[in-house]
């Protein structure tokens, strides 16, 4: 009995194993597509399952999908497309079948599509495009293409199109909301800055009233205390300015009013303003550079950049240290001037160097480092330099010091003429030249003080001229001493004479100038431009060249006919 049972069991096992092997072979054959139909015996007799259309369940799936799906031939002809894709194009599905898919794309996307198909035959690709809709509008879609095998014709493409219009709409909404927020922030900051300035102006005004002795004589101690108040008020003012400036930069609202800047004068002015701070800390502050170098920049901005960089250098250099400002033509870039501010302070580590120009970055990440400021200065510098089409960077060795460098475009006459030539896009009627020929009085004092006098004169000319209409040109040096200053004014003969008159009066009023120099002020029209309502950029450039030529002639003639 026992052995009978064992045999039966073994036979049963072999039978089952054989059935399993058969089933496995069948399954594999089905997977490989070698089986067209399957007959399965069961209690109700044999049933036949046809496998000719194995993708049927997938078709149902495809029809129900929220994405558009299509099968394309290797040439890009639509062999199958689901309801959704048809709906996306606005055509009935039967009009889609047999059409080249590329014809359903909008004009700009068509050229790239065959390439996309070729790529898809090698690996899956994704791309964004626009479907052409029946009503002439376009639908942004993401297209995913992958290779499939088609029974009839070998290779083909399975294409899935995802509607991106929702996403595009959401992105647009996000952008608008961000703009709105930036504007709100800008308004808020303007408001805050206004509210802060009002009391600050009072502190400033009363402090200077006391300091100027308007309400009585002060003791040295009292003056000292008031000086500290004034200094703090000025610091506060700088911070408010920085805050507002940053908000403006973020909102893309920074404006630069370019003119000709004598780089040496800007550096000298910045150093003059910081001389006191340097002396207090016992830091040696020096400058060295090319005295004639002119840059085409906004003088206020140049000063702002310099004050910021030199101020920083002083802040991070210990007592007894050394800060030097150098300026000259940028090596390898003759169209640019290079300014460097070098200190032998604590230096900046490499990871920090990469971040110092970021907003609100302060070394150590903390404001409690004993250094006042908001950490906005360098970020502002970077924005200002780049709005002048220059570059700014830092080199440093921790413990040895840092060198901050920036470049600014070198001045040329043509570059600066456009504010004089045009007003709101239309050409001005005339351009005039006011020449101030100044010679030191023949006294030793006057000759010795000439560089001071000429600076004073230049300042006076800048004060007399209108920033958006007139340009004070750099002086032409003449031998032995004395020089010709010129203002190019966007005005006609009578306007120019008025300006000349104003300069004469101002010079007479200034004691230092009237004591030390003799000056002749004259005006002339250099070009009467014909009316051009909307001059092109080329028109303005051509006229600028012409005027530049006339100006240099007039100035040479003047200094030549001494």
């Amino acid at each position, binding site marked *: 009995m026992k052995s009978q049972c064992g045999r039966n069991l073994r036979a049963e096992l072999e039978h089952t194993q054989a059935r399993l092997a058969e089933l496995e072979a069948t399954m594999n054959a089905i997977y490989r597509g070698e089986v067209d139909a399957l007959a399965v015996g069961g209690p109700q007799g044999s049933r036949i399952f046809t496998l000719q259309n194995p993708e049927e369940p997938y078709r149902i799936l495809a029809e129900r999908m929220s994405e558009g799906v299509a099968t394309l031939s290797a040439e890009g002809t639509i062999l199958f497309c689901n309801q959704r894709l048809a709906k996306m194009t606005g055509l009935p599905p039967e009009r889609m079948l047999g059409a080249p898919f590329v014809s359903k794309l909008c004009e700009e996307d068509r050229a790239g599509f065959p390439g996309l198909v070729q790529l898809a035959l090698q690996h899956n690709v994704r791309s964004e495009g626009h479907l052409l809709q029946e009503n002439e509008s376009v639908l942004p879609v993401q297209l995913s293409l992958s290779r499939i095998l088609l029974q009839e014709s070998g290779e083909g493409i399975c294409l899935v199109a995802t509607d991106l219009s929702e996403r595009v709409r959401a992105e647009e909404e996000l952008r608008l909301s961000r703009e709105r927020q930036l504007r709100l922030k800008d308004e808020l900051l303007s408001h805050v800055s*206004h509210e802060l300035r009002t009391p600050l102006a009072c502190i400033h005004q009363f402090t200077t009233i006391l300091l100027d002795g308007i309400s009585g004589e002060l003791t040295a101690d009292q003056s000292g205390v008031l000086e500290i108040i004034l200094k703090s008020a000025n610091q506060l003012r700088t911070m408010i300015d920085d805050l507002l400036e940053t908000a403006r930069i973020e909102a893309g609202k920074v404006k630069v009013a370019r003119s000709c800047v004598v780089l040496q004068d800007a550096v000298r002015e910045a150093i003059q303003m910081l001389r006191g701070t340097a002396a207090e800390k016992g830091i040696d502050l020096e400058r060295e550079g090319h005295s004639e170098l002119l840059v085409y920049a906004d003088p206020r901005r140049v000063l702002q950049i310099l004050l910021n960089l030199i101020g920083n250098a002083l802040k991070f250099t210990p007592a007894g240290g050394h800060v030097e400002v150098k300026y000259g033509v940028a090596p390898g870039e003759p169209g640019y001037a290079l300014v460097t501010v070098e200190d032998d302070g604590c230096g900046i580590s490499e990871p920090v160097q990469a971040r110092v120009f970021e907003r609100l970055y302060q070394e150590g990440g903390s404001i409690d480092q004993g250094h006042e400021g908001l950490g906005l200065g360098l970020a502002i510098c970077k924005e200002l330099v780049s709005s002048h089409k220059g570059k700014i960077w830092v080199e440093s060795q921790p413990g040895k010091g840092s060198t901050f460098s920036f470049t600014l475009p070198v001045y040329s006459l043509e570059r600066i003429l456009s504010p004089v030539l045009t007003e709101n896009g239309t050409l001005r009627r005339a351009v005039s030249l006011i020449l101030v020929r100044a010679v030191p009085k023949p006294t030793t004092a006057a000759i010795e003080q000439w560089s001071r006098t000429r600076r004073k004169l230049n300042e006076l000319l800048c004060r007399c001229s209108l920033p958006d209409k007139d340009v004070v040109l750099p002086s032409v040096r003449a031998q032995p001493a004395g020089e010709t200053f010129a203002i190019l004014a966007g005005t006609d003969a009578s306007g120019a004479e008025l300006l000349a008159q104003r300069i004469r009066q101002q010079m007479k009023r200034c004691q230092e100038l009237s004591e030390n120099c003799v000056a002749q002020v004259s005006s002339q029209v250099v070009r009467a431009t014909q009316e051009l309502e909307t001059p092109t950029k080329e028109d303005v450039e051509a006229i600028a060249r012409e005027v530049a030529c006339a100006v240099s002639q007039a100035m040479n003639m003047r200094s030549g006919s001494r």
Partner: protein
Amino acid sequence: MSKPKILVIEDDNNMRIALNMRLKAAGYETIFATDGLSATIVAFKEVPDLVLLDLGLPAGDGFVVMERIRNNAKLCCVPVIVLTAREVRGNKDRALAAGAYAFFQKPADNEALMDAIERALKGTGALAT
């Protein structure tokens, strides 16, 4: 020649006191208005030699005051110097275009402010050159 008369239009009490001290010390006579409406009335009545104008004012913005001054035959030649805590951007160009002689943001550099006042007064002949 009598002292030039300056109308200070300023709504901040402390600032008015400060400006009064400074202008008096410089030898000017001062009159005051604290809002846009009274500013116009005082200006018409007193015909100052110069107006120092704040922009943010109750009862009539500074620009409105400036327009009224500019459009009045008696006052159209009176120089107006703007002294405001408002932003330079936008306001300066607008003020100069509206006929302001100069624009200063608070806190202003006193030397430059006093210089502009003096120049403006000499320009109209209210101060001997």
